[in-house]
């Protein structure tokens, strides 16, 4: 596949992520911050997010598995995950966290367990999407092309 085709495929793919709500404008901000002096900025931030989130999801799973759930602790973890997903533009994860927090406030164990599943699902979805997108970018760069900037009218 030649570079032009790859670039078009990347643009279409990235746009779909925005259309489907996986990513929001904050992700565009990250891309805009990337430059020649730091060409791996987005990759680095995404990696940080993925590592951080895996850890938080593990912590959440453990915290909700306790006989006496400490909802304050659960809420603190969700707050962190909400913050990081918001900072990276992972919109659906962020929204799932917002819902999660309201159930933490209610100390509703069933609802929070469902929320955890929901957040995990959204996380794995966006992880998959981001990794696919970054792989496409890598392929373009490896073929000597440049990564096209996405411009969306929000």
């Amino acid at each position, binding site marked *: 596949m030649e570079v032009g085709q790859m670039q078009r495929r990347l643009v279409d793919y990235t746009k779909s992520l925005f259309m489907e709500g996986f990513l929001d404008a904050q992700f565009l901000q990250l891309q805009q911050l990337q*430059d020649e002096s730091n060409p791996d900025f987005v990759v680095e931030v995404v990696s940080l997010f993925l590592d951080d989130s895996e850890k938080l999801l593990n912590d959440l799973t453990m915290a909700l598995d306790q006989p006496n759930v400490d909802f304050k602790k659960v809420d603190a973890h969700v707050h962190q995950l*909400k913050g990081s997903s918001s900072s990276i533009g992972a919109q659906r994860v962020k929204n799932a966290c917002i819902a999660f927090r309201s159930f933490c406030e209610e100390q509703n164990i069933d609802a929070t367990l469902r929320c955890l599943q929901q957040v995990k699902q959204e996380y794995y979805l966006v992880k998959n999407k981001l990794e696919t997108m970054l792989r496409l970018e890598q392929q373009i760069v490896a073929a000597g092309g440049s990564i096209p900037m996405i*411009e969306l009218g929000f």
Partner: protein
Amino acid sequence: MELMKSSDNIIQDRTQQQHKQEPEMQAQEGQQEQGHHFHVLAVDDSVIDRKLLEKLLKVSSYQVTCVDSGDKALEYLGLLNNLDSDSTASSSSSSSSSSNSSSCSQSSQREGLKVNLIMTDFCMPGMSGYDLLKRLKGSSWKDVPVVVMSSENVPSRISIRCLEGGAEEFMLKPLQLSDLEKIEAYLLKSLHLSCTNIDKDDDDNNADHNSDNNNDKVVNNDSNIDKGNNSTSMNNNFSKRKALSSEDTESRRPKIKGLAVAI
């Protein structure tokens, strides 16, 4: 130490000059080579937010130091285990403008340490942003502007409390390039205060590396503001999002009265 820092800044910023969103780099090159940069201390427990903030600040040509807690911030500023005092012997001579407590060249336990702005997350484990703010305002660093950030829609009683505690502003995360323009205003304001002090003292003007650059920075205000405007135009795509957030926050961000920018 100041001179070494300056050359580090030059090296750092040469790489930033390739940034495609800063067409004004040619004009600013002269200014940067004088080696004066605002130094921002960023405090946030989130590794992602630290990385993001660091990038935003570096893209805006600021020197950045990131720490992950209020305690680390105090330690960096030399405020832990110490009485907060301007009169420590080690902070005299070589560090600039020791005669005035301007925010541009704050004498401290760490010789030559200059911090022009502190940006801190509000919600942190251990020492909160508010606690850090209070500690700073009760210390020799009290004249350094402090901006508090939060990812939450924080109730206004909390944001007002921070403003009453001496914070310049309460900002919503995630920060954007457009938010950096406001930060520039606080930095220039602090510069204006220190420049009025410096003008009174001719010796400082000659001997002081920093104050020379301070004067130059005042002269070059327009290019700084322009840079800020360029960032805004780059963010046209986000205009709707920006508008939304400013409407949402209008009620939560009490206006800062009397913000005098030295233009």
